[in-house]
């Protein structure tokens, strides 16, 4: 997957993944959660009243995906502001917990700006594919195969981001944060990259400035978020190790953004 980024204008690339098809979703979101959540929604129709069966099986491996889609317009707007301008956000970064059935669980995204959701990452990923396709068309390099290639690379980038986050959690602590949380945090990076590509479409020299700025913002956002996640997950607080890892995480956003924005 790490072949040289396609910068040969006019040469059709051999299709690695000729058409995006539903089975490509197996890699969507770094796991088969998509198929399983689809199976959960669809299983109700196939299996009749056994949706509880399907849902309980899904929730054994992933937390309930429904939680991540309880969003509304206002949440999406505010969350985008937090992602793109984390320096200007004056509130606190902790997630609000509420006791549910004897256990502490987090409030859904409608009520809590700091809760992760999956709507923004998916829409940001789709916007990234569409905008990158538009940019390729402006540069004269558009073809459906190239777009499919872009889609696959974008998925790879998302997967790499999730992997980095997960590795960091494993090395520093128990790493028991729910997988969908990590997938959501990884997908937020696409929002910044979309802004970069949009800037490049409008004026090509704004690319460098925007790239630097969105990498920094994404780094800051992830640092602040993962700090809270680590506090929640890890018992012993080893201060300097944590800070170095968080710093590495922030710096790692730059090559990731460059890789994804390289059209």
């Amino acid at each position, binding site marked *: 997957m790490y072949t040289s980024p396609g910068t040969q204008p006019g040469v059709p690339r051999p299709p690695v993944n000729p058409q*995006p098809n539903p089975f490509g979703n197996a890699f969507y979101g770094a796991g088969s959660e998509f198929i399983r959540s689809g199976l959960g929604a669809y299983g109700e129709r196939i299996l009749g009243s056994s949706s509880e069966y399907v849902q309980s099986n899904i929730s054994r491996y992933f937390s309930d995906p429904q939680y991540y*889609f309880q969003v509304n317009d206002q949440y999406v707007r505010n969350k985008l502001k937090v992602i793109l301008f984390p320096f200007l956000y004056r509130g606190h970064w902790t997630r609000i917990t509420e006791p549910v059935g004897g256990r502490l669980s987090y409030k859904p995204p409608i009520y809590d700006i700091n809760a992760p959701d999956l709507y923004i990452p998916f829409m940001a990923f789709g916007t990234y594919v569409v905008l990158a396709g538009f940019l390729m*068309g402006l540069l004269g390099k558009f073809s459906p195969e190239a777009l499919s290639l872009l889609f696959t690379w974008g998925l790879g980038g998302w997967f790499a981001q999730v992997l980095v986050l997960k590795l960091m959690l494993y090395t520093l602590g128990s790493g028991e944060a729910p997988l969908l949380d990590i997938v959501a945090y990884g997908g937020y990076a696409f929002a910044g990259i979309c802004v970069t590509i949009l800037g490049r479409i409008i004026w090509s020299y704004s690319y460098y400035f925007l790239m630097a700025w969105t990498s920094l913002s994404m780094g800051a956002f992830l640092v602040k978020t993962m700090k809270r996640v680590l506090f929640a997950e890890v018992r012993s607080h080893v201060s300097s190790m944590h800070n170095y890892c968080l710093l590495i995480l922030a710096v790692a956003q730059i090559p990731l953004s460059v890789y994804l924005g390289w059209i």
Partner: protein
Amino acid sequence: MAKEFNVPPVVFPSGGNPGSGPQQRRVPTAPFQPPRPANPNLPFMSFDIGSAPPPTSFSAPVFGATGVGIGSSFEDEPPLLEELGINTRQIWRKTISILNPFRANANLHEDADLSGPFIFLIAFGLFQLLAGKIHFGVILGWVTFASFFLYVVFNMLAGRNGNLDLYRCLSLLGYCMLPVVIFSAFSLFIPQGGVVAYSMAAVFVLWSTRVCTCLLVELASCGDEHRGLIAYACFLIYTLFSLLVIF
């Protein structure tokens, strides 16, 4: 020039031998003559619908079954389109209703069908072909993927009371593709890559998005608070297809 092929000679029940000369040979005027008495020398075998079909049917399928009086069960069969479930009148009505971007008639789209979308997608492929791009497989794959994407997003957003199923999602997506198909027809006449192309694309994509969102929100109980979120998902899908047209 007539081709030579072996026509086995016709033998009459009166026992004329096969080689008795051309003047006794009689080509049967009706293409199919049921029911012939059982004569083992005859190459044609009589059959009707109820009995087993003949093992050799070198010419029977061409002439068969249009004869009158073969079996009364054939006349009772419904017409072909009705049997296939293609209701052309309904398809036409649905198509006309899409053409009005400001008011979507959701009752027409209650029953989903895929024949209208199939016609639109084939037309889309044909217009792309006229523009020199062979995109049939791409369109098929992208429509499948897009409908799956929309299905998942819609059902997740709608929560417990989302009742969009994949068939209806595909049907709605296909019907609302009509403005993009019209755009691909228009784009044959405008210069590629100009400002006109982009602005037309914007207009048609917004038209598609608006119709699709209205239909989705009305048909599958979603609730109005997710309208903007669903609209954005539809917008992404139709922009993707318009990219195929522009570039």
